[in-house]
């Protein structure tokens, strides 16, 4: 086991910060803490031994694997290579968001991809070009983690909105037809349902913003501080990131709701259930 403290220049503000380089021995030492958990499980007969061991092994294997992938990704230098990776990330996220919706319909995947892709692309572009002013804009070390954060949070928000909106449309057909019979336009007939669905989709993001820094420290900020970043810089990064996530989630939920509700009306403004 070797601890290699190293005093290096921080790339963020030129100040000296201590960084700790970890080795496999350090990981083995941390894994030893799992023995404590195993002892508790054995003593209290929790029957969690095999599950704990499997979870610990999978943590090491999966994260090591993703570390190799990230190292390869961050070594890309051409804009089209980075763009391809970003596109794959967006497609996977869109597919994941669509699969979380219980009542699917033909066209839901494209609606989800448009909502997620548009919101994430716009916000990421603003972040890279206007706010962070990274040169070049496609620097993988910045754009991939930022897009990943935005996609991860937006897909949850969009899937919550989509789920609630579609379920509500199925459950409240009578109410929607009542509004149509009073000569409401389609958007007027379902405005309340759209409002409730978008609010529902935004709730996790808003809750997170309300308690950040009080209940818990966000992971990104913690990671930056551990890596030797100046805490004030880490806080600023976190604030910016949370605003980006908020805007992207709002945009994504709104676009998703507007695309979905249109599927439930035909050209004669009659309420239908898409298959």
């Amino acid at each position, binding site marked *: 086991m070797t601890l290699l403290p190293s005093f290096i220049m921080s790339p963020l503000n030129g100040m000296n910060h201590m960084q700790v380089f970890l080795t496999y021995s350090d990981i083995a030492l941390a894994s030893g803490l799992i023995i404590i958990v195993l002892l508790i499980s054995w003593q209290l007969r929790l029957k969690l031994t095999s599950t704990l061991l499997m979870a610990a092994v999978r943590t090491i294997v999966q994260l090591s694997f993703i570390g190799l992938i990230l190292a390869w990704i961050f070594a890309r230098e051409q804009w089209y290579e980075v763009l391809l990776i970003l596109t794959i990330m967006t497609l996977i996220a869109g597919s994941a968001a669509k699969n979380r919706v*219980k*009542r*699917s*319909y*033909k066209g839901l995947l494209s609606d989800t991809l448009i909502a997620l892709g548009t919101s994430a692309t716009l916000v990421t572009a603003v972040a890279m070009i206007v706010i962070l002013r990274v040169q070049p804009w496609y620097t993988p070390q910045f754009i991939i983690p930022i897009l990943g954060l935005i996609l991860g949070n937006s897909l949850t928000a969009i899937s919550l909105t989509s789920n609630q909106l579609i379920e509500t449309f199925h459950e409240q057909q*009578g*109410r929607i*037809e*009542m509004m*149509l*019979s*009073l*000569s*409401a*336009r389609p958007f*007027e007939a379902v405005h*309340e349902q759209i409002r409730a669905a978008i609010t529902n989709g935004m709730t996790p993001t808003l809750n997170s913003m309300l308690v950040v820094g009080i209940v818990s420290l966000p992971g990104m900020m913690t990671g930056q501080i551990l890596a030797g970043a100046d805490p004030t810089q880490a806080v600023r990064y976190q604030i910016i990131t949370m605003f980006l996530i908020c805007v992207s989630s709002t945009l994504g939920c709104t676009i998703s709701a507007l695309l979905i509700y249109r599927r439930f009306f*035909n050209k*004669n*403004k*009659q*309420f*239908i259930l898409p*298959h």
Partner: protein
Amino acid sequence: MSIDTKKPLFRFDDLWVHSRRTVNTHHSERHNGEQAKGVAPYRLYQSWSNKRQKRVLVKNLSSPHQALIKGVSGELLSGQITVLTGASGSGKSVLLRVLAGLLPMSTGDIHLRSDTTPHQRDESIHATSPITWRKQVALLAQQPQLLEGNVLDNLKMPYALDAHQTQSFDINWHLTQLASLNKNADFLQQEANHLSGGERQLVNTLRLLQLNPRVLLLDEPTAALDIDTSAQLVSLLMRWLQANRQRSLLWVTHDTKEIMSLASRHWHMQAGVLTEAL
């Protein structure tokens, strides 16, 4: 200017409505097929293959075009009540929703007599914007749908819609109607979710009548009401009909006793076919 009252106010010709009966195979119910065995990639392939076969089988079994309404035709005359009876599932509600422009028809046409000059052509549903059509042909559903808020909020709600921006809410008209229903102005402040079923239907009806449709389609409006409330509702609708001779009612009911004496015509629907009852 005189209107030819012999000419039907409302006419529908050779209406056909089909339903598309398909199982929603995209719902994420667990597939109850055999559990796949073998390594993970093969299990994934087998699961996909089973789902695909299930979709093909279901599509082949379902009949995609079941006729709900079969070539029905009819006309409503001004100032008259037409009663429509029929067993459950015979297509009465479907017909009403098609006439109101809320459900698509497969073929056929519906005409509403123009109320400007007698020489103008009738308005066809296919040539009229859906919003304009629904302002003139209104459906009162069996189950009243009230929004959150009090009675007054519900009555005022339609005037917040674009289609009724040029009209004004007339509280005096409502007070007059409520007085004839033995209710005073305090009724307007009652919360909608505290109303009885009968009161909800009365509010639902007033909310629709204030918009002055020319044809009112009633889908069993008194089905869930007690005798007294039912009588009040019938009285309200009769007063509304008699206030303007250029109106007509099509009344779907199971209980013909309360309305047959007031009706001019009686239709009967069975298995999607409409006939004139004797």
